[in-house]
């Protein structure tokens, strides 16, 4: 499908000739993601590294340009999908008639209110660049597990939000204050104090009355299905330790001049009961900058420099049964001593073994700086390029342990058949939030995307774990999106899809905002069903 000349020229007039392209060389690039094959399956395309390409890609430079672009696209009956740093298949369009609005040019930190601890950011501000600027004020930002190079705005308004530091820095959905939101028809709505006519500000995103943040997103965001977010204020956190950042050496051998009062603890547990108790205790004592559980192999990847390094470390870390990764940070000696005392006490009462204290596992200084910069999660991609995550529900620590326990035998079936990579069935990221008030768990499964049996296995494994979620009431995965998934999970979850669809119809009656990873209007759903029948 090609963009007609008139529309192209209209859009070009808004952003300038160099900021729009409908050339396939450009557009096909945006059809790629690390989960492209899964996307092709989702959209019924032949399997390929490339799913649907957008009809054009446009780079607006301001909120005003975004509004005009959205209005123009809406008027001509096309669709649009906003993306910023664009990591993951959720950034892809779901049809040939979608324009990608690449927000690369909107990269300003509009404001840092250090006293009231929030920062106002545009979509292409990164977690790392925001943190670097906040460090100057002794502040920090929450960063999602996808890494510091992704957009905190995207995470807060449109995507997920778990991060390795979530026990101390929360979940992205909960860190949003004022929001600037271009609705699918081009209207601009400003949430909270930003909407005031007199002296608008960014420090509150809720009200007056109920909060439109409840429409904007839930456990996950609309992933481009409900307009474009052009700026938001995010809550900031105290910088967790001495605010210094000095790195020497040359890649890859960096040495981080350790700030005072930082210490990793890798604490191993032999069984789920002790692990669960330890997670509860560590998080409720409010001592950890990082508190999470993952498999020994995952920790090996996290603490390895690269694949070569991983081969060396896998042996040591692979012996861990159920390790908690805990990072203590403090501002003062007395705080540090207190927190270390708490760690030692809990380790003892929960039958843990602190391998870092025993100096068996000693993370390098680079691991500390990567922890501060929330880079550790990216290491998960070291071992393999292809993985998907099962489960993903979020509620109490207890239910996430149930998920972990139930996962093992199911996963091992496929591991034993050599269809999924062998992590002992224990591949997991279990993350606590807000001092342990809740937690989520996702089980990454590595597969071989060139092996049809392995790909089929991962699909089957996902279906079986979904069935477990339903049978055991394990909470809806936060990765649920798209009509098919909503129509599957909705009836099992208070028929939420009915309300979600109504919201879509109210805010985007013409289905202009690409709904591939959100929910379609009823009429669009009918149209899609007809198209699929015709294809069949």
């Amino acid at each position, binding site marked *: 499908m090609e963009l007609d000349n008139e529309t192209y020229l209209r859009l070009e007039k808004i952003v300038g000739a160099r900021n729009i392209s409908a050339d396939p060389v450009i557009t096909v690039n945006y059809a790629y993601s690390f989960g492209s094959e899964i996307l092709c399956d989702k959209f019924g395309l032949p399997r390929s590294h490339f799913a649907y390409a957008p009809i054009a890609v446009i780079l607006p430079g301001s909120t005003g340009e975004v509004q005009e672009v959205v209005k123009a696209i809406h008027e001509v009956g096309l669709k649009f999908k906003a993306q910023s740093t664009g990591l993951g298949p959720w950034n892809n369009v779901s049809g040939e008639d979608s324009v990608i609005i690449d927000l690369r040019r909107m990269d300003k930190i509009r404001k840092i209110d250090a*006293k*009231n*601890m929030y920062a106002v950011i545009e979509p292409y501000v990164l977690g790392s660049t925001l943190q670097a600027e906040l460090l100057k004020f002794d*502040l920090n930002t929450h960063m999602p597990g996808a890494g510091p190079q992704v957009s905190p705005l995207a995470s807060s308004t449109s995507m997920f939000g778990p991060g390795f530091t979530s026990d101390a820095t929360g979940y992205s*959905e909960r860190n949003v*204050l004022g929001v600037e939101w271009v*609705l699918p028809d081009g209207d601009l709505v*400003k949430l*909270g*104090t930003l*909407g005031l*006519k*007199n*002296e608008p*500000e960014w*420090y*509150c995103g*809720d*009200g*007056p*009355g*109920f*909060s*439109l*943040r*409840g*429409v904007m*997103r*839930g*456990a*996950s965001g609309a992933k481009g299905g409900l307009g474009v977010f052009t700026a938001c204020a995010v*809550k900031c956190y*105290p910088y967790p330790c001495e605010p210094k950042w000095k790195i020497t050496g040359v890649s890859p051998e960096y040495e981080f001049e350790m700030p005072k009062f930082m210490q990793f603890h890798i604490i191993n547990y032999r069984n789920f009961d002790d692990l669960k108790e330890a997670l509860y205790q560590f998080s*409720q004592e409010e001592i950890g900058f990082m508190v999470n559980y993952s498999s020994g192999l995952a920790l090996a990847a996290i603490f390895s420099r690269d694949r070569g390094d991983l081969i060396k470390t896998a042996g040591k870390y692979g012996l861990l049964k159920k390790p908690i990764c805990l990072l203590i940070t403090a*501002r*003062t000696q*007395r*705080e540090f001593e*207190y927190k270390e005392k708490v760690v030692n006490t809990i380790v003892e009462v929960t039958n843990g073994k602190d391998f870092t204290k025993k100096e068996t596992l000693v993370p390098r200084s680079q691991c500390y700086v990567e922890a501060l910069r929330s880079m550790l999660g990216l290491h998960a991609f070291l071992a393999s390029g292809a993985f998907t995550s099962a489960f993903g529900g*979020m*509620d109490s620590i*207890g239910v996430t*342990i*149930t998920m972990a326990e139930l996962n093992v035998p199911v996963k091992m079936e496929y591991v034993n058949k050599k269809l999924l990579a062998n992590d002992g069935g224990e591949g997991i990221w279990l993350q606590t939030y*807000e001092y*342990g008030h809740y937690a989520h768990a996702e089980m990454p499964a590595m597969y071989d995307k060139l092996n049809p049996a392995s790909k089929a296995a991962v699909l089957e494994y996902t279906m079986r774990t979904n069935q477990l979620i339903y049978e*055991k*009431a*394990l*909470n*809806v995965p*936060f990765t649920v999106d798209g009509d098919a998934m*909503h129509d599957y*999970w909705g009836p099992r*979850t*208070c028929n*939420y899809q009915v309300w979600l669809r109504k*919201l879509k119809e*109210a805010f985007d009656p013409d289905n202009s905002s690409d709904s591939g990873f*959100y929910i379609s209007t009823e009429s669009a759903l009918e149209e899609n069903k007809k198209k699929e029948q015709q294809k069949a």
Partner: protein
Amino acid sequence: MKRSENGLSSEIKRKLSPIFKADSISIDPEILKSYEMDVSLGLNDARMPSCVVWPQSIKEVQLLVKLANEQALALVPTSSEPPRFHGTSIPRKDDTIVVDFTKMKNILNIDVKNRGVMLEPGVNFGEYIEAAKKAGLRPHLPLYPYAKKSVVGAALDREPVIIPKYHWDIADPLLCTELVFGTGNMFRTGAAAGPGTLAQQKESGGAQKNPMGPTQFSPFRIVQGAQGSIALVTWATLKVQRAIDLRKTFFVTSEKLSENFDFIYEILKYRLGDEIFILNNLNLAVLLENDPAAIEKLRKQLPKWIGIISLTGAGTLASDKITWQEGDIMEYANKFGIKLVDTLPGVSSEVIARILEEASPVPWRLKYKGGCNDIFFISTLDRTPRYEEILRKVAIQEKFNASNIGVYIQPIVQGCNVHCEFDLYFDPNNGNESGITKNTFVKASQALIDHGAFFNRPYGIWADMIYSNIQPEVVKSMQKVKNIFDPNNVLCPGVLCFKEGVE
């Protein structure tokens, strides 16, 4: 004041009889009268409901809402015992049924491990605090809450809690809810939505703690702050903390409001201390004493502004924790040249602990003069002196006695913003005083809004004021939401920006 005709009420009662037990419906004018107004002046015109019902199950609520849709009735919920405030439960049109949840008062679950409780809306703070204490838990409380006030009601109203570091999000401590939308459909929000029944979820270790979702919207945020105009809530889960074993409270005082702000900002930033808030001497005296004379005496002894910072510890290392925090706080105090004290004239640590941990037998704001119109909004700490000045100017203009203004500033959302509250105390039996108070209240509210004060809990007349000061797209969006969840506007018509149906 409008009355419903007895004939119409009887007809409604007939239709309600299959739904409710006989002792759960009333059209007795004496009973109905108690719902027609509350103690806040000038927020609403008084109007009597046609009927009041006391539901005790979600089924009853659903049937009621369905009936309201069929018969074009209005429903106004209430869940606190009188005295009530802010006009939230006052009917605004004829054929209104008050849905009184005070008999739905089960504590459905106390989950010590997961630090969560599940309460029906009729559970009040007195009952809640007692039950939590027994279970070894520490609730998130507003400042010295009225014992008969609904806990769920307070959470739904976004009443600020007094421990900023546990206030991660403006929605805290509210988590999941079970509710009936204005359409009559039942729903559960957050993790409670499913899959599975609550029992099944619990069996798997679930605790209905995650408030977000299900999936890509968060309906709990649409219900909270809606003043009952989106859904009627039949239970909610709330965050709690484990009980403390030790407490140590400090005070930082000043003659100028902003004098200690740098210090307060610093300890908020580093998450030191638990309860942190600022009061003027009048409000601290009102909180601590029980009669006007004692209040007057105490206020004269107290410094003009008092910041309260309380440290706590729990478990075997409780005192270690306090030692650490105290040390760090003292360092920051020295840095800013501030003196922290642990006593104040006429104030003991036991009495302070009471207002931090217990419920007040009477609404504390009524202790001084019997009447109080409180003006409250969201702002940032650094802006509050400017608002205090605006209020004083209006008070002088309207001849309101400025010495009867109480001030309470509560940092919330971990210090990103504050609940800023001005309490106008007056004698409700004095017509002149009431009139002046009402005028001051109205004019000051408008003046504050004109200067950017964010009235995000817009009760009564504030609604018109704030919504005319808000971007129209916000109102349009809210209307869209209302049209989905309560298309016939049966729930609290006339609140917020939903005017249709109000005569």
